[in-house]
């Protein structure tokens, strides 16, 4: 697939709030996207050769044994010049992406805040909690090299984190999340509609929804439902709400809150969703919040989570090492912890009946236009799903996702 090219940045979906992007900014996003693709498709696979041909033999010679843990492997790889080059380029590209996305938003910050306010002011579908305490684990880490993380406010009514998240998503994922960035949400809907055809949720909660890119497809699929997007980052929630309004969604409420401290009625949701959420939370927070989600679900309700599948005893060491990479070098430290947890144990301990748990994989809805052939060629989840065994990979289908959950 070396010759498949990503769509250009100007192909991404636009709405009334989309930041203005001039010619050079657009070209910069195009370059960084192509660089990400090149590093992912053409440089990264060489790490495996470096490992097999020289890192592993050298380790064996020095230690008198093969590497036995992913930590062994990580340490040994750090000395390899080829790996060093790839890792340095990857880290640097991520930093460049943050800088360029932030610059686009910051240079027009007043204007964007004004626009967001015009969609937000006076709406009862938005709640910002000025007193909310940022969870401790969240305050310690700037996830994926994002300065100030999701919650920092540079000015009053700030939307920087949210607008930067949306603007840069295309570059970070090299265009593989479709033109609206909602590939995950559409994949969830496909899974739910196919697997549980009779399921008609009336109240849906998306926890850690960010700017709601993956929440909106749930609202599309169940237009009668009341949908709540909850997030601990005020700039994410403000931007997400304004964006949803600009895109014509009036059945989605955006709530700024800590998932560990929510003000909802016991048993008041039919569906609680998390999408790529738990890997950015601490072990204690996972355990505590999962219990709270169990409590918020109505009997018969659905708890559904989208994440990378965790390591299994037979996950090869080398795969563990590559999948852990972001934990150590892209500021996602909690991911490494989650990778070795048993998600079914977590869900069971939260109160769910072991007989009502399930997992599975799904493909994104396929989008037309230039995103169609592209949307799965570069997937960080691809090899992981191959591990999970139950979905056959087809490179002309959308991004593939792993889901697990249970019924209350």
């Amino acid at each position: 697939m070396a010759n498949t090219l990503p769509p250009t940045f100007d192909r991404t979906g636009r709405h009334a709030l989309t930041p203005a992007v001039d010619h050079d900014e657009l070209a910069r996003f195009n370059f960084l996207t192509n660089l990400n693709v090149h590093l992912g498709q053409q440089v990264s696979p060489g790490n495996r050769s470096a490992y097999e041909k020289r890192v592993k033999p050298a380790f064996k010679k020095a230690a008198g044994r093969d590497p036995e843990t992913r930590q062994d492997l990580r340490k040994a790889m750090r000395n390899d010049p080829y790996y060093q080059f790839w890792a340095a380029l990857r880290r640097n590209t991520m930093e460049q992406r943050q800088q360029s996305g932030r610059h686009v938003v910051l240079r027009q910050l007043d204007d964007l805040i004004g626009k967001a306010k015009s969609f937000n002011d006076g709406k009862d579908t938005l709640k910002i909690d000025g007193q909310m305490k940022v969870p401790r684990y969240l305050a310690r880490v700037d996830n994926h090299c994002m300065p100030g993380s999701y919650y920092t406010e540079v000015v009053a009514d700030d939307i920087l984190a949210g607008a930067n998240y949306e603007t840069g998503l295309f570059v970070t994922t090299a265009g593989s999340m479709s033109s609206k960035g909602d590939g995950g949400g559409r994949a969830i809907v496909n899974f739910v509609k196919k697997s549980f055809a009779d399921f008609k949720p009336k109240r849906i909660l998306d926890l850690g929804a960010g700017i709601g890119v993956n929440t909106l497809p749930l609202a599309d699929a169940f237009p009668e439902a009341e949908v709540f997007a909850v997030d601990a980052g005020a700039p994410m929630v403000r931007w997400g709400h304004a964006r949803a309004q600009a895109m014509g969604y009036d059945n989605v409420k955006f709530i700024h809150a800590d998932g560990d401290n929510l003000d909802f009625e016991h048993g008041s949701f039919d569906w609680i969703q998390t999408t790529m959420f738990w890997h950015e939370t601490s072990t204690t927070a996972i355990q505590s919040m999962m219990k709270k989600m169990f409590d918020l679900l109505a009997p018969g309700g659905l708890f559904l989570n989208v994440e990378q599948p965790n390591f299994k005893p037979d996950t090869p060491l080398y795969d563990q090492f590559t999948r852990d990479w972001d934990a150590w070098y892209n500021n996602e430290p909690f991911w490494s912890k989650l990778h070795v947890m048993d998600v079914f144990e977590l869900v069971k301990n939260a109160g769910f009946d072991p007989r009502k748990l399930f997992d599975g994989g799904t493909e994104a809805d396929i989008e037309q236009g230039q995103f169609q052939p592209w949307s799965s060629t570069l997937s960080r989840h691809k090899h992981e799903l191959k591990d999970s065994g139950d979905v056959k990979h087809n490179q002309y289908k959308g991004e593939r996702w792993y889901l697990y959950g249970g019924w209350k």
Partner: protein
Amino acid sequence: MTEIDVNKLANAKAKGKRPYFFDDPAVERVLSITMAVATELAVTRERLDTVERLLEDGVPVTKANIDSYRPDDDAAQERQQWHADYISRILRIVHQELEAIENESLNEDSEKLADKYAAA
């Protein structure tokens, strides 16, 4: 109007100790600057491509026309191909390193070769 320092904020460092991968972090700092410069050259090249296409179509080359230019599918494909070719050119040394890892026979030392194959 809120006074903010756009460049300073755009450049802000993410929390956490930055990992340096090369044995000497100075090399990595220079690589980082080199890649930033390479990015800007790609940006200029894409702009030049736009100027050429506007000229070809007889559209006045103004800043506004450059900023609002959107490539059609063929042009988009050609421009992405340019990026791919360009990146491949600037990362040549990395790819050659990989070839050397994968193919031992590419690694013979020239200083020893003449003796080794004297009788060949």
